[in-house]
């Protein structure tokens, strides 16, 4: 099927991307198949599971619901781009100590959402954390470790700041 491609230019993890793409190509497919940034996972492609959560202009967003050509001028940050982020360093350690992952498939999306919760709602209690997390599904952990890990990082940041 001949499709009219469209040019787009945006940033991914601080790198400028210029590409001419089919309008139907969503951001998760683009990052995974064109840029080989496979840390952004795909679990449903209809905006429910949260596996594809990444940051667009500093805010968590669903890559599967974002057309790549609509990202003109945007700054996209994926799990790979958060490798050295200080909050992410804390979250990674807490996810391990609290056993917040089993198969690891939901994990990158969970981490992006968790980081947003920690930064935006440092005082959120368990109920609020769960509510904020409700856009991310995990089939393995029952969420217990994930909630504990977020609480742990909240605590750590209170002590250090």
């Amino acid at each position: 099927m001949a499709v009219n491609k469209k040019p787009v230019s945006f940033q991914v993890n601080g790198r400028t991307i210029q590409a001419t793409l089919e309008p139907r190509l969503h951001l998760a497919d683009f990052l995974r198949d064109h840029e080989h940034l496979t840390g952004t996972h795909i679990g449903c492609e209809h905006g429910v599971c949260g596996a594809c959560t990444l940051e667009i202009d500093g805010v968590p967003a669903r890559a599967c619901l974002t057309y790549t050509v609509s990202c003109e001028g945007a700054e996209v940050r994926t799990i790979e781009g958060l490798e050295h982020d200080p909050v992410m360093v804390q979250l990674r350690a807490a996810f391990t100590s609290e056993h917040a992952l089993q198969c690891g498939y939901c994990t990158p999306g969970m981490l992006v959402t968790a980081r947003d919760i920690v930064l935006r709602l440092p005082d959120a209690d368990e109920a609020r954390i769960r509510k904020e997390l409700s856009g991310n599904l995990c089939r393995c952990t029952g969420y217990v470790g994930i909630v504990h890990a977020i609480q742990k990082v909240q605590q750590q940041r209170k002590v250090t700041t």
Partner: protein
Amino acid sequence: MKSSSTQGVGARLARKEDDRYLRGQGEFVGDIHRPGMLEVAFARSPVAHARIVSIEKPAGAEDRVFTMEDLRGVQPIRAISGLPGFKPSDLWPLAKDKVRHVGEPVAMCVAATRAEAEDLAAQVFVDYEELPAVVDMVQARTAPSALVHEHWGDNVFLETLYDDDLSAAKASAPIQIRRHIRTARQSMAPMEGRGVLCEWNTRLGQLEMYSSAQMPHINRAGLSECLGLDQGAIRVIAPDVGGGFGYKGILLSEEICLGWLARNLHKPVRWLEDRREQLVASTNCREHDYDITVYAERDGKLIGIDCDATVDSGAYSLYPFSACLEAAQVGSILPGPYKMDHYRCHTWSACTNKPPILPYRGVARTGVCFALELMLDAVAREANIEPFEVRLRNLVQPHEMPFDNITKKHFDSGDYPESVRQAISAINLPAWREKQKAGLPDGRRIGIGLSVYCEQGAHGTSVYAGWGIPMVPGHEQCFARLSPDGVFEVRIGAQSHGQSLETTLAQVANEILGVDPQNVRVIHGDTGLTPYSTGTWGSRCMVMSGGAVATASKEIAVRVKKIAGKIMEVAEQDLVLEHGAVRVAGTDRSMTLAEVAHIWYRKPQLLPADVDPAGLEVTAGYKTLRDSGTFSYACHALVIALDTALGHSEILDYVIVEDGGTLVNPMVVDGQIYGGTAQGIGTALYEEMPYDSEGQPLASTLADYMLPGPTEVPEPRIVHMSTPSPYTEFGQKGIGEGGAIAPPAAIINAINDALAPLGAELTTSPASPRRVLAAIEAARLRQAA
């Protein structure tokens, strides 16, 4: 058993496998790219039951679209069972002549991108001559609207019967309760779907297949049968796998199609299941129907059970578990840990125009636990005693262990009544009974529920030989090698996809060999690198792979001591293995494992003359002392608040008293219980894969098929008991599935407890608000009449 070490058996060791996932560096099938790789999409049947009159490929794309006619030499999937009377089905990887469920693949389309492959699939024109759909499992066998496989003459894969004479009970039992109980069809829904990437390696003459699979060696065996390649010409690699739960314990039609395609195109090809495909086309699970009668004494003591059970097995028998494992298992496991003198159970594996089923976490146990535990609560209401009393009066007592129940299931160990007592105490039953009288201030009713289950794990040869399916587990093997640098490498044929085997098997090696878990490399999930195994299913890995790693480690320990004894000039029995070294007991003289290995590999001139020539590599096999399985068990007890106006239930407290024997890593065990329980809550309250009368699936997104999220799942309180299994290496028992077994029974018992004053009762899962309200309305009408 010793468990003093901080890194061995019993340690809450943090997981070695976490780091790659936390950096987005896990490698799932969908993350793998190959130069020149093409993508595959399937044209699938939009109807449940039809004859295929013709298939027309899109003009100009004939060489990129393949039907069964093109796949010359490919054999259908035939998953037999040796149980008498079983009727096998032929599942052609692409439908031939007939389609038997919505989503059945009809044509394979290949293109540079998935989107283009889907464009092609949309242009395949199939002329279907529609047939009536067989949708309801009971009608399928009693009043069929059509025959799914005409030559069978009926719609039943298999019928089984545990016969007994219940006429005396019928004539005299003071309590006789009959119910119709149903559990919904479900999708297992791991977060990662299935995925297959195939490449033909011309140099090796070998098909390399990456597949999101739980049992790669079984996939290889099945592929070999269907593709006509010898097993050495196939290598199956299950890389990181994003959850399984039974969904990936299968030989896929798509695997056969892509295997054929890669070999014939000489190009790498990949297919990734999307969520819609998973929900509308792929395998389901768990649809049971029970017509069950329980006979009991006035005090709640069981006399007998009489049950007709049907399982909706869908359209085909799947490899390797077959279409009848689930229903036949119902017959053999329904009585569970309860004592009774009479038991009759007739089961049917019904064939319908729905996707085939696979055994989901807990397999038939979730259904039978639901049926029996609902009945025990009904007995309690009739006898006017607390439900937990009925359990205490009927459960096997600890002094009766080991115990052979009425269906000859051999319970290895445990104190079941104690788990009930502890659960009742932890949930604080008297306090809730008091609060229940008034209800909550917001008007919601309180309900308290419990259920008991047992989980047979790691059951082996004798059990599976009886089923006669394509796969019977025997000895489990481990290949182990102490490398020149002192790193201990263990290779196992199972696959770890969340079970944490990269950590827990390292703990086992540490326990025996004293090697630092960080210096243990666990290799799994690759038929090219590991010994044969039936794979990861049936809560078997910690028992079987754990036992194999322990056995191999012991053999390596002997060989290490032999070499170290010669070098340090001490008797081997004076040597101990700890902290990565061989030490002369009671002294500080030692050699590191690396130093010992260095001598074997690099300085053989120093070896003792009678050194074992096999060196520091072994393949060791392991079987449990009895292969009838380990029995872990638990009592789940919880409190719900039920809104009788909206039908909504909220879990207020949830307690689990679990006995998994020796826990190799308690943190991992808790994780399995939390995760399993979350799935069980989904089964109890949310998850349902409905079909309309035409056999059309009505849930095609995760907005229709509701998985429990962080706000639906509470944090259960877990209490551990520990009765080591007498039959396993460290006393460990399989525990991976149990969390998913008990919640539907416990939750719906709690709902029924809340509904009892209204005279309403629920006997179908999930307890959706609509069902709860319907039960209340039915009770109202009954009382009005």
